[in-house]
Structures are given as structure tokens and as C-alpha cells.
């Protein structure tokens, strides 16, 4: 008993997640949280996964990618084709459905990771903005391929319909947590430290004996893997996917989530994706004006807090061991406000 208590005390976040999950499920069953809010929550979880996958590239390795929606579409289409076109899961019984769904998700994610490697190897010859442009190009080429594949396999331009709605809140929440912990462990591993070194100074990292190309390709593959998981969840949540859903504006959305939350910080990606997915839904009453306010808020965040909301801090429950990470605690928001005023004071002092 004492051992169990100790484990619980050391990993306090697991009971919290469990409680959160049970609370949401209970409220949903009691009819307080309606299915619209559940849908938004599930979408937010999927976008958190996407922001995390982008964080591995942009935040940890310093490779700018604008093609994350392309990876997501590979995962979505592969898994949806397995469950809908090849297996016809809707006709199976309960357990077989779940097994097929999980299998399709894993296969989809692995195929996406292979795609990531295949795209990464040629694309990594380029740097900086050019890499961003070429990933954007690959993303759009993938989208064009989905439009061309005949309609009895992947639905061509009209999209793939009738995907079984298998991704419930449990699976999406579980996969979201798994990918967050995957990112955490990746960042804390020797891979992650190599990636951080490449981000900070590639030439120095190369001189210290880090095989830059290898670690960049691994980062691409890991990022694509998580994007593939998210894509599969998306397909089985929406029951309908269409090539235009995964256009480049989706990729820029993920980029915005990541940078608004704080690039390089796992917690930042989580909070950014969650807040910016929920925000337009909260503002829904304003109809046409909601996206105007969304754009304005985004600008304000970027201009006044260029490091993002989290600015390199992490939630304590992630227990990052890699050095120099400041923990986000209850006082942090107060410090932000204080720092805003400090800047003004400093400016006034400088003016005098």
C-alpha cells in the first residue's frame, strides 16, 4: 500500500488525468456537457498532437516545416482506407472494430513516418526558409495525389465518406497523452539533446561529433509519426475526410498554435493548441466577427510576447530533466504581468 501511495505521489499527474477524463465522461453522460463541447474538446486534443509533432521539428530541431497537414493527411487517409475501403469495419462486432481501428492507426502512423523519412532526405539539403517552402510544396503535392487517386479507393476530390466513427474521447485523450509523453521522453533522451544542439548551432553540433543529418531525419520521422496518429484520430472522429481539409492553411494553423503557445516548449504547444482551438468556439456568438477577434488576439500575442505564452517554461508534471527548463507554476502569470510593467519602468528610466 505504501509503495502504491509513493508511486501515486511521484506521478501525481496520472490520477489528475484520470479524474479529468472521468469528470468529462460523467458530465457528458449526465447531459451537462453536450456533444458539441465534446467534439470541440476532441478536436483540441487532436490539434495538441499536431502542435507537439510540429514542436519536434520547429522547436527542438530548429527545422521550419510548413507541411504538417500533409503528414496528417497521410495518416488520415491510410487509416481511413484500411478501415473503410479494405476491411469494411462497420460490419464487424465491437471488439474487432476496436482492434481494426488501433491496427489501422498504427499502420497509418508508420506509413506516415516512412513518408516523413522519404520527404526529409531530399528536403534536408535545404535550410531555413527554403526548407519551409519545400515542405509546403510537398504538402500540396500530397494533397494533389489524394485528389487524383480513383474514387473507389480514396474518394478523389469529393473525399472519403462513411468512415466508421470509432475515435471516442477515451482513445483521443489516450493518444494525446501518449504523444505528449513521447515528446517529453524524446526531448529528454540523447536524441532530443542532439536535436537541441543542432537547433542552437548546427556547425558546432557537427564539430562535436553529432551526425546532424541522421538526427534531423529521425526528428522528421518522429514528427510525422505523431502527425499520422493525429490524422487517424481526425479521420475516425469526423467520419469524412476531403483533400482540401489538409491544405496549407491547416499547416499554418498548427504553426500558429505552436508559436502562440511558445515554441520549443511541450506545455506551450499544449496550451496554445487548446486555447486557440477553443477560442473561436467560445466566440461563436459573435458570428462573423469571431475570426476577426481571433486574428487580432493572435497579433497581440505575437507582438507583445514574441516567445509565446509559455516562453520556454514547462508544466511541472512533465518532469523535464534537460537543463535550464523553468517550471510553470501558479505564480508565473503574475510574473508575466509584472514583467510587462517592468519593461515600461525600464523604458521610462531610459527616457530620463
Amino acid at each position, binding site marked *: 500500500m505504501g509503495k502504491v501511495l509513493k508511486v501515486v505521489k511521484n506521478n501525481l499527474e496520472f490520477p489528475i488525468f484520470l479524474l479529468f477524463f472521468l469528470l468529462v465522461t460523467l458530465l457528458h453522460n449526465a447531459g451537462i456537457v453536450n456533444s458539441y463541447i465534446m467534439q470541440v474538446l476532441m478536436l483540441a486534443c487532436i490539434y495538441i498532437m499536431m502542435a507537439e509533432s510540429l514542436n519536434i521539428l*520547429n522547436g527542438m530541431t530548429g527545422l*521550419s516545416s510548413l507541411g504538417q497537414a500533409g503528414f496528417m493527411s497521410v495518416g488520415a487517409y491510410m487509416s481511413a482506407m484500411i478501415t473503410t475501403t479494405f476491411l469494411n469495419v462497420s460490419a464487424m462486432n465491437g471488439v474487432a472494430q476496436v482492434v481494426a481501428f488501433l491496427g489501422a492507426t498504427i499502420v497509418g502512423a508508420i506509413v506516415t513516418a516512412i513518408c516523413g523519412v522519404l520527404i526529409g532526405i*531530399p*528536403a534536408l*539539403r*535545404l*535550410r*531555413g*526558409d*527554403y526548407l*519551409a*517552402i*519545400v515542405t*509546403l*510544396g*510537398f504538402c*500540396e*503535392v500530397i*494533397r*494533389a*495525389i489524394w*485528389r*487524383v487517386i480513383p474514387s473507389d479507393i480514396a474518394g478523389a*476530390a469529393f473525399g472519403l465518406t462513411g468512415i466508421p466513427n470509432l475515435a471516442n474521447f477515451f482513445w483521443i485523450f489516450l493518444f494525446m497523452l501518449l504523444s505528449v509523453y513521447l515528446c517529453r521522453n524524446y526531448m529528454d533522451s540523447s536524441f532530443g539533446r542532439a536535436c537541441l544542439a543542432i537547433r542552437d548551432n548546427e*556547425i558546432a553540433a557537427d564539430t562535436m561529433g553529432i551526425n546532424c543529418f541522421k538526427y534531423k531525419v529521425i526528428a522528421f520521422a518522429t514528427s510525422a509519426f505523431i502527425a499520422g496518429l493525429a490524422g487517424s484520430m481526425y479521420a475516425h472522429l469526423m467520419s469524412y475526410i476531403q483533400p482540401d481539409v489538409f491544405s*496549407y*492553411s491547416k499547416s*499554418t494553423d498548427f*504553426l*500558429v498554435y505552436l*508559436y*502562440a503557445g511558445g515554441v520549443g516548449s511541450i506545455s506551450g504547444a499544449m496550451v496554445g493548441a487548446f486555447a486557440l482551438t477553443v477560442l473561436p468556439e467560445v466566440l461563436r456568438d459573435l*458570428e*462573423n*466577427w469571431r*475570426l*476577426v477577434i*481571433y*486574428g*487580432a488576439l*493572435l*497579433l497581440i500575442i*505575437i*507582438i507583445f510576447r*514574441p516567445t509565446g505564452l509559455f516562453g520556454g517554461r514547462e508544466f511541472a508534471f512533465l518532469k523535464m530533466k534537460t537543463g535550464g527548463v523553468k517550471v510553470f507554476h501558479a505564480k508565473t502569470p503574475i510574473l508575466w504581468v509584472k514583467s510587462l510593467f517592468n519593461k515600461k519602468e525600464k523604458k521610462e528610466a531610459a527616457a530620463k
Partner: protein
Amino acid sequence: MENFLQLLVYGLQLGSVYALLAIGYTMVFGIIKMINMAHCDFLMMGCYIVFFMVSIFFGDQMIGPAVALLVVLVGSSIIGGVGVGIERIAYKPLRNRPTIMCMISAIGVSTFTQNLFRALPFIGPTPRSFPKLIQDFTITVGPVQISFARIVTVAIAIVIMLILWFVVQRTKIGMHMRAVSNDKDASSLMGVNINRVISITFFIGAFLAAVSGCLYATSYTVIQPTMATTLGNKAFIAAVVGGIGDIRGAVLGGFVIGVVEILVTSVWSDLAYGFLFLVLVIILLLKPEGLLGKPMTEKV
């Protein structure tokens, strides 16, 4: 063959629109190394401002070519001013940050403007039809039929490009621009006012985007707040294919992309947009600096 010539004319006309738009992308990238995702919105704003100027001052009556040109130039100048304002508000505070921050800011600007135009009651999301600025008629040259508007479009685009070439190569401000794009810090030490150069670059970029919007809308008359995104992407491809940072490259890339797009669309319309990106990927992988760009050297 006749079909090909006909398509070539369409391609050149579309290409001139892309070229004007691509010049804006390439100039901004050349000066502050930033991909201005909001650049295409200047095109949309240009269309709307000319639409409103014509409908308020002239109503339904036909306006002569000189007045039309004047309206387009005045409208585009206003958009140029808007471009300068946007740079001051959204990009200037981030100038010392990584360039990707500017790009995020530009995405924010783009979301804001497009949705503002959708939300404003007198504009709204419904498509409107752009007023006819010139009396259109068809000229038949051998087997090819060319509408007068297309010739005017290409002619105006070429004249503007020549003027721009003159400004960049022969005037003092053009020299400043070239200096800043070469080395920002060194030119600042030589007494170049960087803020002024950046403002003028944004003015020219937004101005050209607005003009290209009007040229586009005279042939494809439907205007709506979201019209510019795909156009902007294609122009961006044009800028990269030609060699981003190089004005001649943007012009060449614009015409190449215009012609390629029209030719591919005539064969398989579903594939055209993706094919352009395939061209982009291939060019970037084989010759990352673009068709006309100089090879980059990495500084340690």
C-alpha cells in the same frame, strides 16, 4: 497549334498578374528575409477599393480608359499606404526576432484582414462582380482570338515592370534598396535609412499587388474576400521558382507559372494546382536558389 497559341495568350495574361504579385513577395524577402503571407490580401483590398471607388463616384456609367487608369492608380496608392501601416504595426516590432515570427505575424494579419472584410456589413462574404473598366472587344490575329482587355493587362504589367526596373537600377532609393538587400547592417552604417527603405518596399509591393488585383479582376470579374489566397500561393511559387529576392526572377517565374498553369489546366484541371507545387519542389531540390538566383554561400 492554334489551340496552343490561344492558351499561350491566356497564360501570358495570367502570368503578368502573377509576376506583379511575385515582385512584392520577392522584394519583401530580399529586404527583410521574410515570407509575407499577408501579401495576397493587398490584391483583394485593391480589388475592393477600386470596386467601391467606381460604384460611389461613377455608379453604373461607363468610364473612359484614362479615368479608369487614374482610379486604379489612386486606389493602389491607398493600398500601398495600408501596406506601410501594416508593416509598422505588425512586422516592425519583430524585426530582430527569427524571421519565422514575422511569418506568424503575417498569418495573423491575413486572418484578421480577410475576416474583417467578411464581417464588415457593406462588404460581406458574398461575391461581387468587378466593374468593367474598359470597353472590351476581340481582335483576331490569324487563328488566335485575343480580347483587348488581355492585351491591355499584359501591356500595363510590362510598363509597370519597366518603371520598377528604372526605379531600382537608376534612382537613389533603388540603390538604397539594393544595398539593404545585400547587407542590412553595413548599409545602415553607410547612412541608409533602413526604416524608410523598408516602408518604400512595402509601399511598392502593396501597390503592385493592388494593380495586379485590378488587372486580374478585369478578366475574372468575381471578387470576394477569400479570392486572393490561391493567387497569392501561385505568385509565391513564381517568386521562388524564379529565385526569391531577385526581381527579374519574379517576372520570369510569374510568366512561366502562368503559362504552365494554363497548359496543365487545359489537359487535366484537377492536377494543375498540385503540379505547380511539384514544379516548385523539383526546382528547389535541383537549384535551390531558383532559375535566376545566385548560389548562396553559408557564413560561419
